[in-house]
C-alpha cells in the first residue's frame, strides 16, 4: 500500500517541491499550511511520515513537534524536520521548552537544513519508510 507522507510548510514553493519529490518516489503526498492544520491532518489521516517546517504561522513546527512527541498515540510517527533554521537553534528552543514544561522530548530522527537536493530528501524519506 502506498505510504502517506504529510508535508507541513507554509511556503507553497516548498510544498510543491516536496510533493513532487514524494510523487516521483511513489509516496502519497498530503499537505498542510501551518501547525494547526498539520495536527488536524495527522489526527485525521494518520500519515506514515511527517515532513515538518520549523517556522510557520499558527502553531510553529517547534510546537507541533512537541505535541506529537508527547502524545502517546502519535509519538511513533517518524518526523523529518525540514527547515531553514540551523539544528543548533532548533535544539536550543526544544531544550528551553524542556526546562519550561518539564520532561524531555527526543531529538528529531532526521533534520534536514534547506536547501536540499531532491535525491537527498528522497534518500531521507526512504531511510525512514523503506
Amino acid at each position, binding site marked *: 500500500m502506498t505510504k502517506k507522507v504529510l508535508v507541513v510548510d507554509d511556503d507553497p514553493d516548498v510544498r510543491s517541491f516536496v510533493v513532487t519529490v514524494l510523487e516521483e518516489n511513489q509516496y502519497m503526498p498530503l499537505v498542510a499550511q501551518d501547525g494547526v492544520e498539520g495536527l488536524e491532518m495527522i489526527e485525521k489521516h494518520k500519515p506514515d511520515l511527517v515532513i515538518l517546517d520549523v517556522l510557520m504561522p499558527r502553531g510553529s513546527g517547534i510546537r507541533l513537534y512537541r505535541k506529537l512527541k508527547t502524545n502517546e498515540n502519535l509519538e511513533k510517527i517518524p518526523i523529518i524536520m525540514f527547515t531553514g*533554521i540551523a539544528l543548533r537553534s532548533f535544539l536550543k528552543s526544544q531544550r528551553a521548552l524542556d526546562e519550561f514544561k518539564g520532561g524531555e522530548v527526543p531529538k528529531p530522527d532526521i533534520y534536514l537544513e534547506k536547501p536540499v537536493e531532491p535525491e537527498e530528501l528522497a534518500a531521507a524519506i526512504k531511510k525512514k519508510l523503506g
Partner: protein
Amino acid sequence: MSANKILIVDDEEIIVRLLSMSLRSDGYETVTAYSGEQGLEVFKAKSPDIVVTDIKMPGMDGLELLKKIKELDPEKEVIIVTGHGDIDSTITALQYGASDFINKPVRDEALAIALKRAKTKIAIRKKLEEYTENLEIKVAEATEEIRRKSNFQRLLIKSSNDAIVAFDHNWKVIVYNPEAVRMFGQAAKDVRNKMTIDELYTPDMAKIFKNQAQSEKDQTTFPWNEKIIKTKDERQIPVRYASDVLYEKGEFVGTVNFFQDLTEIKRLEKELVQSERLAAVGQTVSGLAHYVKNILIGLKGGSYVVDVGIAKDNTEKFKTGWKTIKRNIKRIGDLTQDLLTYSKQREPEFEPCNPNDIVGEAVELVKDTAVSNDILVLTEFDKTIGKVLADPQTIHRSLLNLVNNAIDACLEDEDTSKKHEVRIKTYKDKNKMICFEVKDNGCGMDKDTRKQLFDPMFSSKGGKGTGLGLLVTGKLIEEHNGVIKTETSLGNGSTFTIKLPCKKPN
C-alpha cells in the same frame, strides 16, 4: 632730591656772612655775591635752587637780578629782602615773579619759613613735572593699547569664520568682512560705505533685521536662527544667523549681523545619515543572507518541479514549478528595490495624484493572498481627499508594506477562532494631513518587537522577512516629511498610521 643750594646776594658783606653761616648751620649749601652783577655771574656758574637777594643794591639792584634770573630760568625761586614800606618795589618784584618777601632786618625764623615755602614749591613743581611726564607716558601707553585692541578687533572681524555685516543708523553698510564678501559675492569696495541693507540683502532678509531694530529696546540681542539665504547672484546658502541691535545712550546707532555658512555642515550631516544607512545595510546582511537562501530554496525547488514536468510531459507540474520560479524572481526584484531605496538618498517626486487610487491598487495586489487565507480586507476611503501633490511611489510602497505586514500578522496569530480582518482607511486629520491607517486584528506585538520595529536587522518573520520592509517605509515617509505611528496590543492586533503633508496641486 631736595633744593639745597642757596645764593645769597647783598651789598652788605656782614649780612651775607651772617645769613650764610646761619643757613649752613641749618644744613644748606650756600654761595654768595655782593652785587647784582656778581649775583648773576654766580647764579650762572653755580645754578643754585633758591636765590635770596636784597632789593636795594648799587648797580644792578635786586629787581633787575630777579628779572634776569627769571629770564634764564623761570622756575628758580627768588626771595626778595625788602625794607619797610617799599610797596612799589614789592609790586614790581611780584610782577617779575618773586616767590616771597622777607623784611629787613632778616630774622632767622622769617627766612626759615620763606625758604621752607620755596622748597615746598620746588618740590611740588618737581612732582608736577614727574606727573606730567608720567601722564604723557601713560597716555602714550593707553593710546598704543587702544590702537592694539582696535587693531585686534579689526583683525578679529577680518579673520572671523562668520560673515559679519554691520549697518549704521541709516542702514548703510559700515562693516563687511572678507567672509561676508565670500558669502554675498560682492566686493568690499562696492559695499562698504556704499550700499544700504536693501541693496545688499534680499527683501525678506532686510525685513527681518529691520523689524528687529524696531522691536522693544530691551531686546538687543537676537538668537541664532537658520535660514537659506539667496544671494544677489542667485546662490542659495544655508546659514545660521544672529544679530545685535546697537544703542548708544538710548539712541539707535546701527545693527550687526552674523552669518555662519552651514553648507559644509549640511553636507556632512547628509553624508553621516548616508553612511549610517549603509552601515545598517551591512548589519542586515545576516538577515538578508537568510532571506536570499529562502529565495534560492524556492528557485531550486521550482526548477526541480519544472524538470519533472518536462520529463513526464506533465503540464500541471511544469506550471506549478514555473510559478514558483516566477514568484522567487519577483522576491529578488522586490529585495533589490528595497535595498536600493534604503541605501540611496532619494528625493520624493511630487506629482498630482489621487491617494485613494494608489492605496486601492496596492490593496488589489495582496487581496488574493488575503482571500486564500480567509482574511477579510476592508477599505474605507475619504472621497474628499481627491487629487493632491504627493509622491505616488512613497504611498504605494508604504501601503503595500503595511498591508502585507497586517496580513502576515493575521497569519501568525495562533487564535484561529478569530475572524481575521485588515482594515485600510484614509482620512484627513485636523491639521490637513492625509492619513493612511492600516489596522489588523492579528497577533499584535510584544514590547520588545514593538521597540525593534524600525531597526535594520530586525525581522519577526524568520527567514521570510528581509528586515527591510518597515525600514524602507520609515525612510520613504521621512523623506516625504511625514510621520508613521504604531499602536499594538499582543494578541489583539496592530494599527499603523502614516500621516503625510499634502498640498493641493496648483
